């Protein structure tokens, strides 16, 4: 039997083969067909999109597979739209009904999250073995209702704990075939991330506070000029733009740091028997990609979205690896079940980010 034998132990890098030119053509055809069918095609577009990224991701000579049925996604989308329409119309006419909807939404959220994760996992496969996600309402309710309440009570101090429990929930409940993933990060890893971010914020805030007075006198005298001809003048314009020029980059930098450090921590502490991931993303590089993506997408009226998506996917995957003591042949398939798409689609319409 001529199997692909891998000497053990070894490091298997993830590879990404997506090309922005090729993906642009797939993306624009998706967009135009979605427009021409008034959105109905968007379910097929979503599958085609995801298939492009999955199939271009290679590990140990094999690529990933996305298997969701577009019809299931379309049904989920229509249901989500229906729920949203009922909500909007009811709240327009009976504003007092809003709290009822909010409570119902909070109560339904754990269910939505479990459904979405399960749908996504069971429709993802590698070497003809599907991924899996196993959880229940109660467990999800603890993480997504219980801990957020704790975060509120502690005025945010418990947020890093939530960040930890969230990833723990995602990874510990995920599996590949019959093999489950485990997560050995600790709460302190996440507190460290937020502590660093908070210190950086303080430091940058201090810098701004020192640098700003240099601008202020000029601004004030300009504001007091009598009989201004032009209402908005140079220094005033600078003052108006200040939030964008200073606060936005700082916010984005700190956001990117938290995002990057969380991704690295999540992957570096995810493992199964004999296998372990490693993710080595750099904050500077991620910041540069996000910043240039932002500018490019804005200036190109969205036409560079495909290029931006390929760039970030490539960087993320090229810095991800699987360290394995043996080859990848030993995983046994689980029972293959179908799960309705409703969860994920509802979650998408309601803008819940279910990623890492």
């Amino acid at each position, binding site marked *: *039997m*001529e*199997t*692909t034998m891998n000497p053990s132990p070894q490091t298997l890098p993830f590879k990404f*083969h997506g090309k922005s030119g*090729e993906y642009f*053509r*797939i993306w*624009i*055809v998706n*967009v*135009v067909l979605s*427009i*021409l069918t008034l959105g109905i095609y968007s379910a097929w577009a979503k599958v*085609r999109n995801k*298939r*492009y990224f999955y*199939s*271009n991701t290679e590990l*140990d*000579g*094999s*690529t990933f*597979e996305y298997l969701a049925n577009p019809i299931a996604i379309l049904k989920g989308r229509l249901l989500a739209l229906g729920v949203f329409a009922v909500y909007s119309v009811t709240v*327009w*006419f009976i*504003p007092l009904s809003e709290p009822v909807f909010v409570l119902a939404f909070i109560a339904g959220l754990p269910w939505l999250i479990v459904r979405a994760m399960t749908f996504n996992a069971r429709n993802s496969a*590698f*070497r*003809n*073995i599907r991924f899996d996600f196993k959880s229940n309402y109660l467990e999800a309710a603890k993480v997504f209702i219980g801990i957020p309440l704790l975060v509120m009570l502690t005025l945010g101090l418990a947020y890093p704990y939530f960040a930890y429990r969230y990833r723990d929930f995602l990874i510990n409940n995920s599996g*590949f075939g019959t093999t489950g993933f485990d997560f050995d990060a600790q709460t302190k890893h996440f507190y460290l991330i937020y502590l660093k971010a908070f210190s950086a914020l303080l430091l940058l805030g201090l810098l701004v506070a020192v640098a700003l007075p240099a601008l202020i006198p000029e601004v004030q005298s300009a504001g007091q000029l009598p*009989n*201004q001809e032009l*209402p*908005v003048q140079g220094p005033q314009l600078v003052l108006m733009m200040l939030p964008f020029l200073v606060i*936005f980059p700082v916010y*984005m930098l700190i*956001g*990117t740091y938290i995002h990057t450090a969380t991704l690295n921590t999540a992957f570096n502490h995810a493992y199964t028997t004999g296998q372990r991931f490693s993710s080595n993303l750099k904050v500077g590089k991620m910041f540069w990609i*996000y910043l240039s*993506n*932002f500018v490019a*997408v*804005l200036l190109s*009226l*969205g*036409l560079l*979205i495909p290029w*931006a*998506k390929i760039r*970030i996917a490539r960087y993320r995957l090229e810095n991800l690896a699987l360290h394995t003591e043996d080859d*990848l*042949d*030993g*995983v046994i*398939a689980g029972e293959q079940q179908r799960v309705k798409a409703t969860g994920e689609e509802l979650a998408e319409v309601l*803008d819940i*980010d279910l*990623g890492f």
Partner: protein
Amino acid sequence: MGQTSTPEGGTDVSARYYDGRTSGATAVRLSFGRCGLVTLTGAAQSATYKLEELDISTRIGNTPRLIGLPDGGKCEVSDNDAIDRLLRKQAINRGGWLHALESHYLFVMLAIVVTLVSTTMTFKYGLPWLAERSARALPQSVDRSLGKGTLDILDRSLFSPTTLEPAIQARLSRRFAEMITTLPAGRDYRLLFRAGNRIGANALALPSGTIVMTDELVMASENDDELVAILAHEIGHLEHRHSIRMAMQSSAVALVIAAFSGDVVASSSLLVALPTVLIHSSYSQEFESEADDFAWHYLVDNSIPTGSFASILTRIGADGGDSVVSRYLSSHPGTQARIQRFIK
């Protein structure tokens, strides 16, 4: 990946075989024969299937194809062209048309044009039309609920009580009441006076049907006709339901942009916010000219010189200093044209 033509004119491709029970990968060869039979040969296995039993994934870019076998196994094949040739020969074209469209540069160009044009048209005409239609279907009580509390917030943060003489207030309120009688029945619009402070000479129409006129504006006027012209403009905003239409249009724009942009940047909310603000300001310009139309017709119908509107706009625009109105006026190139149409 090796691909050869077999003597019988069939196709032979190398593949990786996954049995669907374990995650092992095996190198195999797939031979597609002339008579619709496919033979899978590996070091330790051999099987023959009918071509129509196979579930061949549609092509996406140049990614490997997965061929589902009837026994639950799958083969991963990198040689896309060989598979495509085979499917063409067998006249099987499931889903192949998508890849054909994506590979056709003329169609891709067309798709770009259609996307840009239809997005622009949707933002410029589609959403405003839809918002206007929906606003007409909704009772005005909805506008009220939208503007509930707005006056309280403005009173707390911006305005202070009026210092106008009660006689002036009464005179203007009478003019306002006269104006309301020309409108369809059931309009319970109110006129309130406030010291504008930071916003200077200004007038605002709140969705609740309340029009606020600042003391500074009253001071800046040379006669009541000028204030009537401003009031007519504000009533135009209310009659055309601009607040609720703006709310609907802006949220629709944000939804459309969010749907397109996805997760390309860390802060997609800002990516959504910036274009939304730009489109929002273009909508508000359109609403201004709609309200101007209303004012113009009101002035003409009631034999009030239309120049009143032009003169007060020019005056508060010229020495309003800090006011929002003047900032708005001076930053909009269309303002001169706006004023121009009221000067005969």
